[in-house]
């Protein structure tokens, strides 16, 4: 085991949480519910950015984003708990690093949209096609979140160090 994982797993918080046998399955259940909220809210907005469902104003399609963010928050918290409980499963895992990479990509993509393109959202009415820049942001987001899901679920099976 790598020194960092060995250190973290020996800490009191890590051992205490591992001893609560119900905690891991509970966090998994929350993690999968969060997944549904995140894919639903973000995916819906991404589809509109890609130019689907044009009768929905872009600004209106964004109304579900707080629920996607809530789903992300649930998964960030439960994901952090998984990591603290069993870092050796993640630190040497190529799948986990790929997952983290795509979370960062999705995050930067969303920040770019909010800071650079966001103000143009409100100017776009119903029945209007989205500009290419919106389509790229929507495509990158949709791909990234499904990549996060893919590498998360494949985590026990690919690129594991043990």
């Amino acid at each position, binding site marked *: 085991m790598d020194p960092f994982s060995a250190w973290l797993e020996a800490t009191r918080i890590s051992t205490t949480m591992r001893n609560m046998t119900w905690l891991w399955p509970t966090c998994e259940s929350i993690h*999968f*519910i969060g997944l549904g909220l995140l894919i639903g*809210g973000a995916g819906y907005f991404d589809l509109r950015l890609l130019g689907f469902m044009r*009768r*929905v104003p872009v600004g209106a399609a964004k*109304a*579900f984003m707080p629920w996607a963010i809530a789903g992300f928050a649930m998964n960030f918290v439960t994901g952090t708990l998984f990591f603290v409980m069993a870092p050796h499963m993640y630190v040497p895992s190529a799948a986990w690093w790929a997952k983290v990479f795509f979370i960062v990509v999705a995050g930067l993509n969303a920040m770019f949209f909010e800071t650079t393109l966001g103000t143009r959202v409100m100017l776009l009415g119903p029945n209007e096609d989205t500009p290419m820049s919106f389509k790229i942001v929507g495509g990158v987001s949709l791909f990234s979140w*499904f990549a996060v*899901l893919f590498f998360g679920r494949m985590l026990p099976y690919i690129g594991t160090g043990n």
Partner: protein
Amino acid sequence: MRMAAWLHTLQNSAFSAWVVGSDSIWAYPMILTMHTVGLGIVVGAAVIVDLRLLGVGPGVPLDEVKRLFPIFWVGFFINLVSGVMLFVSEAADKATQPVFLLKLSLIAIGVAVTVRIRRRLFGGGGASILAASAVRTLAIGSLFVWAGAIVAGRLMAYLK
């Protein structure tokens, strides 16, 4: 007993041996991952429909909510196929697992609720259907039933 024998035949088939025995990530891991992709699509679409009916995103025309149902069914089809594959590989064990039967029941309820919501939306009446408390009950019920199905599915790995 004939049922049990049949389930064992499924579980002992060459296909099952490949699903659970193969070292390939294209066997069990990929089927499992497709099942999670389908979960995201099914629950994602249902959540948007439910939230819209509960008043989130009032700017989304109700007519446009109908476009989410084909997405829902695509996800459902992915999970029906991947779910049957996962089930067959462990048929005899899963068929008697209470939490699996609970999951199947919740999915059946979830689909029935979704079909009823769809019927309401396609039945016309425009925004006035939102005033009906039955619609809100269906939407809240849908959210809880899908969350329950997810939890039951997850617990299949932990409960005998």
